[in-house]
């Protein structure tokens, strides 16, 4: 029993996303598919799942070629996928999500709820998943939502299960629980493809590791024959420095003081609940935590994008609680937003236009109502050079740039002045290793020039590597504070919220 992808090629307009890729997985085997963002892993999996059609190449199950026109065909052939962004309807219950598309019915298409509930309970018990079939998805923590996805796949009798970046939304402890589930699936004879860019996890869980780079499969190795540095080199194509170089911090005056801040999210829940902390000039404070624990709303409140319900935000002693985003900008706060495409850039605008987005109204870029475009272009040219933005020109739409270079455009725009406070949210999400190294070094440089820096990231490794001090956010509160020398395990435990630790670990 084997699933084999042979010679898969996928040509998109202008991009060769997959170039003669080979991958096979047997039943009862775990194969890790490693690669950087943009290496073509997701494209390959979308082909396997019937969402894309390959330009060339074949998919075979047990030696028989198969062709999938839609995900329905792939499901029927025994392939299940747990997507990186969960494919769950937030307002439906667990049972409704599990049966969707494969509903047990009575006469007249009436759904047999009892049967649906039993199916969920059955699978949940067999694999020890502990999921309540009647809970509504949007009320569940991400880790449980992932289990719902797994139940969905199992309910459809999948023999091969693909996990697309499954650990990126989990806390370290949740990752351990997830690995146990994967092992029990393996023991049950399922073939598993584990897509990741996390080297340690691949080494820990996989029977075999396949590495992709720029649309090609470049290597296939056994975990016992290689280490993290070796994998990183295969992934990136050159030796990589996995550590951030920085001198010890030299904190001075308090720049940002947050007191008892409470912020409501879009659904009027207290997603930030009485948070207090300070950031000093010359130090990097990292906020770790699983996504969705209030970090987004915290950053929005600090940058003026969301009015807090209560509490105080002071910048160098001045009350900025209800300041507008422009007021924050004028107080020399640099903001690197968490979603560069949604709130960091205007994608159809050119590099130049994006670079002046925060200062177009000031001298010398505009005089009265007239814009000085020569001045704007001069600035763009200078910053593109200075920040190593790889772009065909300053007049191309920023949407043509790679993720890493888009991020550099934002960093250039925000850092090009005397910055007092840097607020950077997920500064390196989804960008290549080269850009990550560069952006990290720029952030450290700002610190050394005397800025206070607040980093928010759900990548624990990133927070630990960059920060001089780490705060952990859990359920809208600060659940712990650590200095740079703390161990990842310690911080990881706090990310679960100490009170819920016992319960979650079971």
């Amino acid at each position, binding site marked *: 029993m084997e699933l084999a992808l042979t010679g898969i090629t996928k040509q998109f307009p202008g991009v060769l996303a997959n170039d003669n890729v080979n991958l096979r997985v047997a039943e009862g085997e775990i194969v890790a598919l490693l690669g950087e963002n943009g290496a073509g892993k997701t494209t390959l999996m979308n082909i396997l799942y019937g969402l894309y059609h390959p330009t060339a190449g074949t998919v075979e199950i047990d030696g028989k070629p198969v062709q999938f026109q839609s995900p329905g065909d792939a499901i029927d052939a025994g392939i299940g996928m747990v997507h990186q962004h969960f494919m769950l309807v937030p307002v439906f219950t667990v049972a409704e999500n599990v049966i969707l598309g494969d509903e047990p019915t009575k006469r*007249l298409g009436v759904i047999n709820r009892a049967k649906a509930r039993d199916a969920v309970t059955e699978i949940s018990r067999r694999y020890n998943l502990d999921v309540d079939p009647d809970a509504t998805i949007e009320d569940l923590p991400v880790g449980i939502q992932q289990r719902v996805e797994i139940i969905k796949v199992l309910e459809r009798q999948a023999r091969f299960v693909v996990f697309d970046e499954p650990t990126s939304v989990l806390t370290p402890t949740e990752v351990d629980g997830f690995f146990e589930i994967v092992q029990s699936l393996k023991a049950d004879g399922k073939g598993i493809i584990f897509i990741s860019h996390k080297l340690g996890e691949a080494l820990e869980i996989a029977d075999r590791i396949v590495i992709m780079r720029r649309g090609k499969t470049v290597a296939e190795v056994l975990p016992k024959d290689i280490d993290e540095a070796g994998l990183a080199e295969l992934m990136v194509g050159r030796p990589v420095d996995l550590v951030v170089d920085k001198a010890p911090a030299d904190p001075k005056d308090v720049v940002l003081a947050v007191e008892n801040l409470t912020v409501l999210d879009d659904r009027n829940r207290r997603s930030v609940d009485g948070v207090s902390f300070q950031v000093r000039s010359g130090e990097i404070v990292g906020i770790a935590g699983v996504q969705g624990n209030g970090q987004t709303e915290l950053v929005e409140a600090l940058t003026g994008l969301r*009015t807090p319900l209560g509490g105080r935000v002071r910048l160098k002693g001045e009350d900025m609680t209800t300041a507008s985003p422009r007021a924050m900008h004028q107080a020399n706060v640099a903001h690197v937003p968490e979603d560069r495409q949604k709130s960091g850039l205007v994608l159809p605008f050119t590099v130049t236009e994006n670079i002046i987005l925060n200062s177009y109204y000031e001298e010398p870029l505009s005089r009265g109502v007239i814009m000085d475009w020569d001045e704007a272009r001069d600035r763009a040219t200078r910053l593109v050079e200075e920040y190593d933005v790889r772009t065909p020109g300053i007049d191309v739409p920023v949407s043509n740039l790679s993720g890493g270079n888009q991020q550099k455009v934002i960093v250039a725009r925000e850092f090009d002045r005397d910055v007092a406070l840097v607020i950077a949210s997920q500064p390196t999400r989804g960008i290549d290793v080269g850009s990550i190294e560069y952006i990290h070094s720029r952030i450290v440089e700002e610190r050394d020039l005397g800025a206070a820096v607040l980093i928010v990231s759900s990548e624990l490794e990133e927070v630990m590597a960059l920060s001089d001090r780490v705060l952990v956010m859990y359920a809208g509160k600060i659940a712990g*504070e650590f200095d740079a020398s703390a161990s990842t395990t310690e911080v990881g435990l706090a990310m679960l919220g100490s009170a819920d630790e016992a319960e979650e670990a079971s």
Partner: protein
Amino acid sequence: MAVTTSPEIVEKVRATPEERRATAIGIVLVAIAAFVLWVFALGVDSSFVSTFNLSLPGDPDLTWVVSSQVLSFVVAATIAFIGGWVLRRTHVKWTNLGLAIALSLFALAFLTWAAADKSFSLVGMLRSTVILSVPVTLGALSGLMCERVAIINIAIEGQLLTAAFVGTVAGSAWGIWAGLIGAMLTGAILGFVLAVLSIRYRIDQIIAGVVINIFALGLTSFLARRILSVTPELNSPGRFSTHKVPLLGDIPVLGSMFFNHNMFVYGTYILVIVLHFGLFYTRWGLRSRAVGEHPKAADTVGIDVYRTRYRNVMYGGLIAGFGGAFLTLAQVSRFEENLTAGVGYIGLAAMIFGRWMPFGALGAGLVFGFALTLQQKLGILGTPIPSEFLSMTPYLVTIIVVAGVVGRSRPPAADGQPYIKD
């Protein structure tokens, strides 16, 4: 450094949106109470009584006589009490209930004032409310049928109007049942056009709907002038007759109000029940809602998003066609230019007011039906209010409702967004 986990007193920067809304509503209610006291209670002679007729002609007589002034005093006091309670903001969740009760009482005080020293058929008014609610409710059901799969149907107005036209012509030529079928198919065809424009060509759904409405108004007006005015025999389809429901129809007041109508009214009740059951208890409903909430999730489990959308938008068209047939085959039995006069848009407002739920659509339809009835019936009573203001009532109610008296409700998450398969 302070690690705050204790529930210290938070210094408030602002109230939550619900609280601010409760304050606004409380103030409005107190103002309404003052208005009732000033105009309705102190504005009438203390000796006047209002006589409400609670039976239809031919049924056993039933009347309710009440002192106009005393009733208004009681209502003013009650509304003021509710307003004060809402202002205290102790039970913000129940603000809407207080608002609903207060507004119903206001309507009662208003009718009492209008009927002071006169006799007024309350049951006739309530019956008319039900009749006029039918096209609004059907419009709302048509709209929610589409929006539950994330297609915004602004074209309800055009569907009603065109269906009403085809209903009258086909009904006159081949009988009323042919008129009904013709009208429903017309609605479905326009639904198909909307579906093609918004699903296949991904035209902005609002614009596509508006285009259909303008087209429908122009086409039916032109044809009415060119054909119906020269061959009036094509504009007299006759009507579906009224049937009293056995037993239920004999209940005092409620029987006359709800169970003594033509089949369109009963059809609407049945449709509300069927749609509610269908949406929340069947495979079709689960899949439809999934397509409206998270089309990609539906796609990844093998549900054909496009086909589901086409199908439901055409079902929505059938419902709007049924509503259009009601206008010319039951309500007035002839077509006139712009016969609908915005009922389709009011239906859309009723859909929002009813929070995308079939029973909500029915309730909201009744509220708008009441407003439409006021516009018609109060002229007869001869109130000092100019008739132009009375004509505004339904639209005024629409604006108030849509502007958010009902508070924020949650539309299907993908509403209005085209689904792009990549």
